[in-house]
C-alpha cells in the first residue's frame, strides 16, 4: 500500500489535531479527507480534515503587492521558506488491537508524529465499522463549517465505497445524519443543502 505522508503534528488535544506541512507539498488533503496518525504500532488515531491555514509573513505581504512576479520567487517561497501550511483535523475515532472505535482517542498523539492520508481501503474499513458513530464528532463542532466538511467527507467516502461496489453507503450515511439532526431543523437543512450542492446523488 502506497502511504501518502501529509505532515507532522504540531499540537493536539483529544478532539483536535494541528499538523504542519511544507507549502510545496503537492499531496495536500482536501477538506473532509480521512487521515491517520500512528502513535504506536497497534494504535491509530483517525481524523477528518476540516480546515487548512496558509500563514503569511511580512515578505509575502510585500511581494503580493508587486504586479508581475518572477516564478522563481514563488518557487523559493514554496520550497525554501519555513512558512508551513497548518492542517486542522477533527479526531473521529481510533483503532486499537485491530478494533476500530468511533470514539475520541483515549490519549492524543505527541508532537511531530506523522499524519498520513488514508487509502480507499482504510476509508471503507473505518466508515463501515460500527454505525456511523463518528459523524456525531463532526456535528457537535461549533467553530467548524460542519455542513461543508460533512458533504465533502460523504462525497469522498462514497467514492471509496463505490470502488468496492457499495453504491448505497452514502444513502445510509445521510439517513444517519438525518436521525442525528432530527431535533435541529436549521442545521439539518444546511447539511442537506450542502449534500445537494456536492451532487453526490445526481
Amino acid at each position, binding site marked *: 500500500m502506497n502511504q501518502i505522508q501529509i505532515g507532522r503534528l504540531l499540537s493536539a488535544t483529544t478532539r483536535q489535531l494541528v499538523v504542519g506541512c511544507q507549502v510545496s507539498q503537492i499531496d495536500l488533503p482536501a477538506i473532509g479527507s480521512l487521515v491517520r496518525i500512528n502513535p504506536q504500532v497497534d494504535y491509530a488515531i483517525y481524523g477528518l480534515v476540516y480546515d487548512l491555514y496558509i500563514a503569511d509573513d511580512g515578505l509575502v505581504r510585500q*511581494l503580493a*503587492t508587486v504586479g508581475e512576479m518572477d516564478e*522563481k520567487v514563488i*518557487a523559493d517561497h514554496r520550497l525554501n521558506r519555513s512558512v508551513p501550511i497548518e492542517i486542522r483535523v477533527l479526531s473521529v475515532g481510533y483503532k486499537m488491537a485491530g478494533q476500530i472505535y468511533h470514539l475520541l482517542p483515549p490519549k492524543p498523539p505527541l508532537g511531530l508524529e506523522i499524519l498520513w492520508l488514508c487509502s480507499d481501503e482504510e476509508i471503507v474499513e473505518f466508515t463501515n465499522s460500527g454505525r456511523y458513530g463518528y459523524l456525531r464528532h463532526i456535528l457537535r463542532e461549533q467553530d467548524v463549517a460542519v455542513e461543508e466538511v460533512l458533504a465533502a467527507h460523504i462525497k469522498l467516502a462514497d467514492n471509496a465505497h463505490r470502488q468496492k461496489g457499495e453504491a448505497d453507503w452514502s444513502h445510509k450515511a445521510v439517513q444517519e445524519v438525518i436521525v442525528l439532526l432530527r431535533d435541529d431543523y436549521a442545521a439539518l437543512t444546511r447539511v442537506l443543502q450542502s449534500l445537494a450542492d456536492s451532487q453526490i446523488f445526481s
Partner: protein
Amino acid sequence: MDYQKLYPQIQEFVFQTKANRQQWQITYQNCSDALCNYSDKVTELIQRIDQIPVNQQKNLRCALPIQEQLDQSIILPKLDTMPTVLAADGSQILPDRHAPVYYGLINVGGFVFPGNPQAFPQTVQIPELIYGEQLENFSEARLALQRDIHEREMLLNMGRTIQMPCVGLVDGPLEIWIGGSHSGGDQGDYQRSLNTYFHLLGDLYQQKIGLAGYIDRPESNYLVRLLEIAVATPEELQNLQRFHPFSGVSDVDILGALLKPTQRSALFSLYSQPNIQYPTHSQIGFFYINVGSENHPWLGRVEVPAWVAQEEQWLNLVHTMIVHQCQIMGKIAYPFALHRAHELAVVSNEEKDQITRWILTEMQRSGLPISSYSHKQELKNLPSRREWKNPLGGKM
C-alpha cells in the same frame, strides 16, 4: 520616562533641524553648482588629488573619477541573459559575560537566485560556534570581521558550483575596515584577516565570479568630498582635513535629482588609504543607482572590485542584476536575494535562548558545573509589572 522633561527637548530638536535646513539649502545649491562646473573636468580633478599634501591624504576618502563625467546618468543596459545571483549575509550572537555560558556564534545565510529560468532558488546556512581560545581578546569588531570573511567564503563556495555568469552580492561595503587604531595583537589579527580577504578576492577573480556590495540608503559623501577638493584653493588644500564647505550634503542629495529610475551614476574609484593596499584587480570602485520610482527616487550605492569595474560586460551585469533584484521587492526596493540571505542568517532571541539551553544541557550531561545569569542580568530578566501574572488569578 519623564515625558514632560523630554518634550521641550523634542521641540528644540525640531527647531534646530528646521534652522539647519535653511542653511543646508544654500550649501546644497553651492555643491550642485560645483558639480555642474567640474562635471567634465575629470583629468583636472585627478591631477588635483595628486596635488594634495601627503599628510592630508592619510584620512581622505573621496571619489576618484575614472572616465565618465561626474554627473553622467547611464541607462539600464538590455541583456539577453540574467546572471545567477549569489547572496550571502551573516549575523552573530555576541558573547555575553552576564549569560550562563560564554560563547559567540556566526550564522551565515546564502541564497542562490538562478539566472536560468528553469532552475529553482537554493539556500545554504552555515552556523559556527565561537568559544574558548577564539574568544581571547574578543571585540565586537573582530567578530564582525570574521563574519564578513565567512560571507565572502560562502560566495566563493557557492560560485564554484554555479554556471557562469554569476555575481556574488553582499550587504554593505566591500572594503573591510575597522575603525580606530590597531595595535599589538589586534594589528596582527587585522592584517591576517585582511590577507585572508585578499586571497578570497583573488579566488573570486580567478573563478570569474562577479562581486558587488550593496549599500542601502548610503550616507557617504565621496563625490561631495571630491567637489570640495575641486573648489579648494591651494592654501585650503594644505589644510584639507578642516575644509568642509559642503558639510551636511551627501552624494545621494546631489545625485537624487539627476538619476532617473533604473539609471546608474558614473563609475568612480574609491580613494582611501585602505583601498590602496588592495590587490590591483580588487581595488574598490562604486556607483550610485536609482532603484526607486519616478516620484520616489531611492538611491543605493554599489561597490565593485576593479575586475568588475574595468569590464563593461561585468558592470552591465551588476547594473541589471541590482535593478531586477530590487524590482522584485516592489516599493521597498532592496535586492531580493540579499533579503533572503538575511532571513536565513538572522538569529532570533528565541533561537539564541535555545542554543544557550542546549549548551547548558550538554555541559550538565558531561558533568560540568553549570553557571547562571549574573545577578545584574537576573534582575533585568525579572518580569516587568505589565508582564507579571497574578498566580491567584483575578485582575491586578
